[in-house]
């Protein structure tokens, strides 16, 4: 692949998804484009680039999806789910006691493991959220991964990564060699295809937003834009969850990290003027 072709693909990906593809990620491009090339009956990377230059919209969409699809597993990194169970959920149960309404957005839902992990926690705490209206919205750029998320079917390998066996036998059934999440968990999550670069109008407001391991692929201006638009969807007492390698620090001051809760950011309280001091 020529440097000019790499630049062409990198610019296309940036424009369509915000993904910043540096030259050291050429291996990623080569490994992920192979299946897309086969699907479109193309011989290899050069043929793919030639078609992209000829404005093949379906191919451009598939290449973008292939490059932005990230692996996921149940209860990934554990801590963000401990924070949900022990910190955010108790706080929200108190703060929303009058309305009994809780909305959660998983902004990079991928194949569904993150929203279903939250749904399982809520099911385990069902006595606490009895009579509550809880909504979990999972969005992703890729229709392919969302189809998998909606189906709720996972391989043996996938259900063994992060999912405690007690929850596996409780909330999954075995279908041939695959494991299917039970309907009462599946029905707790609604999925929508969405590009984080596009408008968030129509999503409504949320109490908690999980946006993990996706900002790392964007440049700083894109990160700032996404975070500032997410802030508009969260009330003053809402929570934002980022990935372990991500932070709001140095990007925007609409959020500030919550001390003692790794990965959790909140809006700076009006009563804390020092929060805005650089």
């Amino acid at each position, binding site marked *: 692949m020529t440097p000019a072709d790499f630049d062409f693909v990198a610019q296309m990906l940036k424009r369509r998804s915000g993904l910043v593809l540096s030259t050291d990620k050429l291996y990623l491009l080569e490994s992920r484009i192979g299946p897309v090339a086969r699907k479109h009956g193309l011989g290899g990377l050069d043929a793919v680039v030639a078609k992209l230059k000829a404005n093949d919209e379906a191919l451009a969409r598939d290449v973008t999806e292939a490059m932005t699809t990230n692996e996921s597993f149940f209860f990934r990194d554990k801590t963000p789910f401990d924070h949900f169970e022990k910190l955010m959920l108790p706080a929200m149960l108190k703060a929303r006691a009058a309305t009994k309404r809780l909305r959660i957005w998983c902004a990079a839902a991928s194949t569904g493991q993150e929203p279903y992990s939250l749904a399982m926690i809520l099911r385990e705490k069902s006595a606490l959220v009895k009579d509550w209206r809880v909504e979990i919205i999972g969005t992703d750029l890729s229709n392919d991964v969302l189809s998998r998320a909606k189906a709720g079917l996972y391989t*043996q390998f996938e259900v*063994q*990564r992060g999912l405690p066996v007690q929850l596996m036998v409780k909330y999954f059934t*075995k279908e041939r060699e695959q494991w299917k999440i039970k309907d009462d968990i599946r029905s707790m999550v609604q999925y929508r295809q969405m590009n984080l670069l596009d408008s968030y109008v129509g999503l409504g407001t949320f109490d908690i937003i999980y946006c993990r391991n996706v900002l790392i692929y964007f440049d700083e201006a894109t990160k700032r834009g996404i975070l500032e638009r997410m802030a508009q969807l969260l009330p003053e007492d809402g929570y934002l969850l980022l990935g372990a390698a991500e932070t709001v620090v140095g990007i925007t001051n609409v959020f500030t990290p919550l001390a003692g809760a790794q990965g959790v950011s909140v809006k700076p309280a009006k009563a804390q003027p020092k929060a805005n001091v650089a």
Partner: protein
Amino acid sequence: MGLAVKHCLVVDDSRVVRKVARKILEELKFEISEAEDGLIALTACRGAMPDAILLDWNMPNMSGIEFLRALRQEDGGDRPVVVFCTTENDISFITQAIEAGANEYIMKPFDREIIEAKFAEAGLV
């Protein structure tokens, strides 16, 4: 408190599986001993209870589930964290294992990532 090396007993009638499991668990800083069936494992546990047991299901002399039920009756037998590691992957088997006192369950084939994840969930790494 010092960082004591944890002891894991690998119980499997396959020499190859024991060897692979030993390699993975040694990389996770476990001290390893091996047993080729449940009966040998039970004798070993009566001598010294390990911190963890990686346990196959189908073995001659005493199966994994028979071993686990017997282990949990022993003095100190509630202490080891037991992780089944077996080709038996039906929910009925997994449920039996949990009821008998298994802490986690790995469905073969396994790799380093799965063993590490399951041992982490069980609080061992």
